[in-house]
């Protein structure tokens, strides 16, 4: 009965999720330390507010947003680590806070910044202990580790103490550890942070296999746009503690329009058509010659002009031709947008 019902439940169901942290206001001046002990004043910081979404079984969701936007707080609430101040979470129909222990055996959690392995012991020993913690039989443990070892190249550091692993090795070992009890749902908080290209590729390949071949539901946070593009079909953006976008990756790209920055140096100044004195940072300019190019001036020096264009809408050559008609171009520099900047834009 129960199992039949569970299959139909979404992997993650979050409704009106919010978390606020209370910190006492630090008094200024004399005896500040003593006074703050008795302070009744609190500053309430709303880290996350009104987050609601549903993730179906088998989805691969990217959860992105700038530092401090509330990504980790959300993940920790979903995984049962933090109790939400408001709202509700259900993982496959179970409340991870009311039934933390029961829920925990169905999820795997990886925090890129810390390890769940035993620091001073060989990698393989950590797996033995974790298997016992989750009640995984020896046969299952060996079979799964065999599989993981192939996919993640674990064999090369099997007997090395965890403290001597490189960051990339440790992360691979940690991801295998999170999957040892074969959870249906995997939370990864910045699993590729600080890794080199090879380690990233290895980890992405493994996550892809987990999702596509084994049907695992995965939610990951990252600052690496490649993680999102190569792995996720769906992306959620959080900014200032609120969900600002939830949809496909293509939809996100369309919504942002991925602006490219072009910095032009003119030999001897330029005249921007339609520009009035003192309004150098005017918004989108209508342009000469009938065809209006949507470009935006973001900075203007004596000889330089920096504009932003949407390369989805405008061809670079057209932009350069346009800019060339404003003065004699000496040099052109192009810069693709940083991911962080893109994120900042969609909630700013």
């Amino acid at each position, binding site marked *: 009965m129960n199992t039949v019902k569970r299959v139909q439940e979404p992997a993650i169901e979050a409704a009106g999720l919010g978390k606020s*942290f209370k910190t006492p206001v630090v008094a200024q001046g004399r005896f500040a330390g003593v006074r703050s002990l008795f302070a009744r004043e609190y500053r309430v910081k709303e880290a996350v507010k009104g987050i609601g979404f549903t993730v179906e079984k088998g989805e691969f969701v990217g959860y992105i947003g700038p*530092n*401090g936007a509330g990504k*980790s*707080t959300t993940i*920790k609430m979903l*995984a*049962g*680590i*933090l*109790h939400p101040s408001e709202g509700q979470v259900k993982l496959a129909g179970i409340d991870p*806070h009311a039934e*933390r*222990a*029961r*829920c*925990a*055996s169905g*999820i795997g*959690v990886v*925090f890129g*910044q*810390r390890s*769940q392995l*035993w*620091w*001073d*012991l060989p990698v393989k*020993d950590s797996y033995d*202990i974790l298997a*016992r*913690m*989750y*009640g995984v039989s020896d046969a299952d443990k060996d079979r799964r580790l065999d599989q993981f070892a192939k996919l993640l190249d674990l064999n090369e550091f099997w007997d090395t*103490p965890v403290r001597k692993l490189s960051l990339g090795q440790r992360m691979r070992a940690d991801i295998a550890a999170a999957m040892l009890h074969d959870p249906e749902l995997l939370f990864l*908080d*910045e699993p590729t942070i600080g890794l080199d290209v090879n380690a990233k590729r290895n980890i992405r390949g493994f996550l892809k296999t987990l999702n596509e071949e084994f049907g695992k539901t995965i939610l990951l946070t990252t600052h690496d746009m490649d993680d999102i593009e190569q792995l996720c079909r769906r992306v959620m953006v959080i900014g200032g503690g609120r969900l600002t976008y939830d949809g496909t990756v293509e939809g996100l790209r369309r919504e942002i329009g991925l602006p490219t920055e072009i910095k032009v140096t003119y030999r001897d100044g330029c005249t921007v058509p339609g520009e009035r004195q003192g309004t150098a940072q005017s918004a989108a300019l209508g342009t000469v010659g009938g065809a209006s190019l949507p470009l935006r001036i973001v900075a203007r020096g004596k000889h330089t002009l920096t504009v932003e264009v949407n390369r989805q809408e405008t061809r670079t050559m057209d932009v350069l031709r346009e800019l060339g008609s404003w003065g004699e171009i000496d040099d052109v520099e192009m810069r693709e947008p940083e991911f962080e900047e893109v994120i900042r834009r969609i909630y700013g």
Partner: protein
Amino acid sequence: MTEIANNRTSRLRAVRSYIKLYRLLIRTSIRSRMQYRFNFALGSILAALIQLSEFLMVAIVLAKFGSVQGWSVHEVGYLFAVMTFSKTIYRTFGDEVHHLERYLVEGELDQLLTKPLPVLLTLMPRSFRVMFGEVIQGGAIMIWALGAMLGSGQVTWWAIPQTVFAVLTGAVVLFAIGLATATCGFWTTRISMLQNMTEDAAQTAARYPLTLYPNWMGVLLLTAIPVGLVNYLPALYILRGELGIWVFPLLAAAACLVLLFALRFWAFGISRYQSTGS
């Protein structure tokens, strides 16, 4: 009916697997510690030296005054030894509770909360250690104190099992105080100052007969921070024949009560865990 029986067997099985896991984690902790043998050896020697110097302080006081408020040197030595034993048991098994601050400040509790197990079960064995220094020191003082009192006929051999009982309930009481103190950290994050009061200062105070202190403080050390239950109360009966045999059920009940309270408070505290950024 069968359902209840099934429930009971499954709960029994869970407890048994918890105990097995607990032992495995203790072995793991010892192996981790043995990676740094020099540190372990040095730590044990230093602990013994510190313990010795602590007792020297007490010994100097006693040698000067002979007795404290009608309590003989041996009786005070007994109080000291019982406290040392109880504290050693508490810190052998529950040292990580005492060091919870580190987990709160660095957000290390996150990992433990993702396991399908009670947090205390995975937290406590993390720093299991055999405290040789404390055991030797406590044992030496206990043998000296009890030996003298047995010799003078003040106590009978019955005092030994009674003392063992007091040490065990005392360890439970100290653990409960430590756990409740640590739980405050879920609100304040830093707890070392509070621990100075409820653990270190209180335990040191209870090395002497509580009659030494003003009344209100004696009451405080038997109720709010019940360190007096560890050694003073049992000593009143075991050594001096005051009170009555009912002291033992009382101790057991009190230990269960404070432990239950501390565990409830702990469970509530965990729901207030704030973790750290990222």
